[in-house]
């Protein structure tokens, strides 16, 4: 089924609208590494997240993450009525830590946050991504995210969509372009030999087209994450995925 989907993409890029996981664009060796429940290096950070979960007192409210967090990550980002804004999973975790546990917020890109994110998302592994745009704010933010996604930027004047929609499945020199789906994040990226959040990947993509990423406090980060996650609705959560 997956192989067929890739073949279809190669034959007719116009069909690229059907979401296809980045997994299907990998070499069999890399797929095997992701599928290995011991050797997948991303699991080192899942373990780390589990240790932080236990140490910081997340379990006092949530109990065992295997039960309480099953399927939770697959729905994020969500609209929070209480906070009057959209919350990504990272922002939700940070709110839990600061409001309920009285901890200092983690700096942006902190490895602890990526580990916690990986641990929570990992509990949804195998479930379909199901981000609902069931609030006017969510729909508006997703539209803003899509607008950002389709706007050319940087010295190379490329938009995200130029590669990941219009040319997904084709080669960019030695690599096959994926659709840039977010269903496996946080990912273990072989290029980095490290875990990476969606945030880190978006920064890397900006660098690749020689563009400056948005400022840290720019709300477009949330819009873009929402758009990217909702774009992969129906794909299977693969966290921690292994990518090139």
């Amino acid at each position: 089924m997956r192989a067929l989907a890739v073949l279809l993409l190669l034959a007719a890029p116009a069909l690229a609208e059907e979401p296809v996981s980045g997994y299907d664009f990998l070499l069999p060796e890399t797929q095997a590494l992701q599928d290995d429940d011991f050797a997948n290096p991303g699991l080192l950070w899942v373990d780390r997240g589990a240790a932080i979960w236990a140490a910081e007192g997340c379990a006092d409210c949530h109990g065992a993450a295997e039960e309480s967090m099953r399927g939770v990550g697959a729905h994020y980002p969500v609209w929070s009525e209480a906070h009057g804004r959209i919350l990504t999973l990272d922002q939700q975790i940070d709110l839990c830590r600061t409001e309920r546990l009285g901890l200092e917020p983690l700096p942006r890109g902190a490895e602890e946050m990526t580990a916690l994110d990986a641990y929570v998302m990992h509990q949804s592994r195998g479930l379909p991504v199901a981000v609902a745009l069931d609030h006017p704010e969510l729909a508006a933010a997703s539209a803003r995210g899509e607008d950002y996604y389709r706007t050319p930027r940087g010295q190379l004047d490329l938009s995200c969509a130029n590669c990941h929609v219009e040319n997904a499945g084709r080669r960019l020199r030695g690599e096959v372009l994926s659709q840039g789906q977010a269903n496996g994040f946080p990912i273990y990226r072989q290029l980095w030999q490290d875990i990476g959040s969606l945030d880190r990947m978006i920064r890397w993509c900006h660098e690749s087209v020689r563009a400056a990423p948005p400022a840290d406090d720019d709300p477009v980060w949330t819009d873009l994450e929402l758009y990217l996650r909702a774009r992969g609705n129906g794909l299977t959560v693969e966290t921690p995925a292994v990518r090139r």
Partner: protein
Amino acid sequence: MFNTRIRVPESAAAGEAVEIRAMIMHPMDNGFTYSTQGTLIPVNIITDFTCRYLGEVVVQVRLEPGISANPIFTFSLRASESGPVEFEWIDQNGDVTTASAELAVT
């Protein structure tokens, strides 16, 4: 102490060769790469890995800078008696990380 993952079967028949796996979270910086700020990242590696079974060394590896991050070792061990399988990693600063598991031999 670094985060580790080890896999030792819970039980094995006497004389059976079992697969042992051990992995450690470590950047294994080789001293040739630069940070995003353009500064050279100094060498930072694990230098020794040892596995002991029943107190006896069964695998010993000296690691060099060419080894990639988060090194994983997979090897076979012939089960003889019930006892601990102990793992030890030493980094270049002499910091020791250990992990162990019990292997029951029936």
